[in-house]
């Protein structure tokens, strides 16, 4: 008896909680947002790589030439990510970046 009552009450409460989002009107899905978040994450990772390489170089783990090459590649990749971000956000590059 106790079991049956508890079962019904709990099921009702959970059902009510779970139906709240369903009753709300479906939010406009922004497809871009996912892509934006991904690019943001990629950008952060790329920045970290650039800083890591710089730290490695300063600590003598990466020769000057190696570091230059790695750093150039990484920066080029980072710039590409920034371009894509801008395109997505509908902005044009501001000064300082487009060398």
């Amino acid at each position, binding site marked *: 008896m106790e079991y049956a009552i508890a079962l019904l009450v709990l099921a009702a409460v959970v059902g009510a909680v779970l139906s709240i989002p*369903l009753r709300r009107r479906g939010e406009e899905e922004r497809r871009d947002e996912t892509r934006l*978040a*991904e690019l943001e994450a*990629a950008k952060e990772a790329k920045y970290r790589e650039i800083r890591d390489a710089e*730290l490695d170089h*300063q600590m003598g783990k*990466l020769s000057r030439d*190696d570091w230059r090459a790695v750093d150039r590649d990484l920066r080029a990749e980072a710039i590409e990510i920034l371009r894509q971000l801008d395109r997505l956000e509908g902005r044009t590059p501001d000064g300082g970046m487009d060398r």
Partner: protein
Amino acid sequence: MAGVGSACLAVALLTALYAVGASIYGARSGRREWVTSGRRAIYCVAALCVAAFAILEAAFLRSDFSYALVAEGSSTDTPTFYKVTAVWATQDGSLLLWATLLSLFASAVLFLTRRSLRDIAPYATAVLGTVAAFFLLLMVGWENPFDTLAVPPPEGAGLNPLLRHPAMMIHPPILYTGYVGFSVPFAFAIGALVARRTGADWIRATRRFALIAWTFLGTGIMLGALWSYTELGWGGYWAWDPVENASLMPWLVGTAFLHSIMVQEKRGMLKVWNASLICATFTLALLGTFLVRSGILESIHAFGASTIGVQFLVFIGLVIAGSAGLIISRLPLLRSEARLDSLLSREAFFLLNNLVLVGLCLVIMWGTFFPLISEAITGTEASVGPPWFNRIVTPLALVLVLLTGVGPVLAWRRVTPAALWRVLWVPVAALLLTLIALLALTDASDSPASLAMFCLVAFVIAVVGQELWRGTSARRTMTGESWPRALRRLTGRNRRRYGGYLVHAGIAVLFLGVAASSAFLDQRDVRISPGESFEVNGYEVTYREATAKLGGDSSGTGAPISFGAVLDVRKDGEHFVMRPLRNYYTSGDPSLGTISRFFEGEATSEVDVRWGLTRDFWMAVRPDIGSLDAQIREADEKFADSPGDVQALIVAALAERYRSDPPPAAFRAIASPLVVWIWIGGAIAVLGALIAAWPSPEARLRRVRSLYSARLGRELSRA
């Protein structure tokens, strides 16, 4: 309340299944509201599990023996601390703990990723919901922790005395948290594969969870070892027991995963490998839970035979088949974005470390399941003992520690041999100096493997020290900061890196303790009477007197009878007293005599350890209560129907008799060098892992939307 508990579990099961269905439907149809509802269903599962757990916990605290579980695993005379923890000493209770921790972890990660990873998260929700549903189904279908007894017994059986140890009681939840934690990266890996988003996003989102899980699992293993050392009365900390191995295997593969995901994050390589590793880690975590509970392998820790072995095997089989099929079907998407530039690079060494770690896991798995393998092949059940494990694992461990040192100094992509030598000569010099010093000053050459380990430990610590030094001086030249400030800023800005290095140093220190204590341990077993002495490792030990106490065990185990010994230990003018005990618990067996019952139940050693930075002195006693047998039998007959207080008097008289006229007692004394560094090293590693897992300032910034407009040059100049 038992009915409410059962209802919580039943509703939680339905809710978990709903979460699976709703999030998959939402993801397929693109209707976000269903995804949201599915995610909230996981929160509801967590709430229901917590409620069920609280109800059970309350029953244990009240000693409500109408619950079968409470009658089985607790008693009114069990100390309160152990009443709280007795919940997970039972099979049903530990399943509930698993489900509760899983749903809490799942809720946390789904809450944190609710606005990101929109493609992956719904499928991850479905995977987490499935795992939760499996554990809930086990409880609802077969092992309901809320089963009640029609006729509650007047007294419960009590908590197994062997488990009355602080380390043992927090060990299961911590270990389970580790197991459960790995389900999060597993779920997101599966989600990423299903959603065909095979970049490094899922790794970035769950890396921290994997690290936290790894830390908990490692801590759990350490606590288990500590329990073995101080409670089991044999003086060792690792016996290659199937249940110990079962917890070590996912930890090893998890370690490999934590390293190789960095390669995917940085270089876009090893995608198949990473997905396979996390699936393997999670499978091994399930296997670990299964091994403890199934009793298919002979183990001293397998607590009772299980009724849910088949269900576990089926689920593990489904997990393996499902993840393997999924990975194979997504192979074209999992191509590497880059090639290995050079064998002398960090990624190449990470790959090597992965091979060693996975190899170690395979070796341990082979040894653990050898009884089953040999039975299948030769028809007879045979097992391999610790010597086999030690022989195979020692060389692999040496290689691993070497890699622990070499890995951090390597740069990504490529290193020239000249550059490598520039960063390695100091650690190599440290290694050689250690070798010469040890050979000249100690007898470490008796054990070549230990000697090699000592040298490698010096190498690793030198590497970590040098890394900190170089990093700090590089920062100083750049910013002109003071030493402490530069060090703080450096480690603060690169928590993951320097936390990781600290873990490396901790693991090296841990291996120092293992190498020293396994090769240079001095142990003696003697059987002596009061007044007699023996000698071990230069310590002169004298058995001063016997002790017998009723209900007076100072470590709070609630043992009714403790027999023990007081020993004087002398070495080089140093003098200390040791008081090892042996606790006797009352047996519930009604066929025993009224007085025998007090002595014929469980007995556990409460060892006395004098901890020391250079050497532990460990002592256990085994009193010979056989000498009391005649008196006990006599008392059984005379006082067969006596009331409780008379029985107590008789037991007190017997105890006093033991104290005043003690027979010879058996002692085990161990002088174990540097063993304490195992625990210190473990603690350092945990600290390092916590530092690495702490959110970095940059990750916190990432959440701020204003960062969207930030520019590459500006941000780099801040570093």
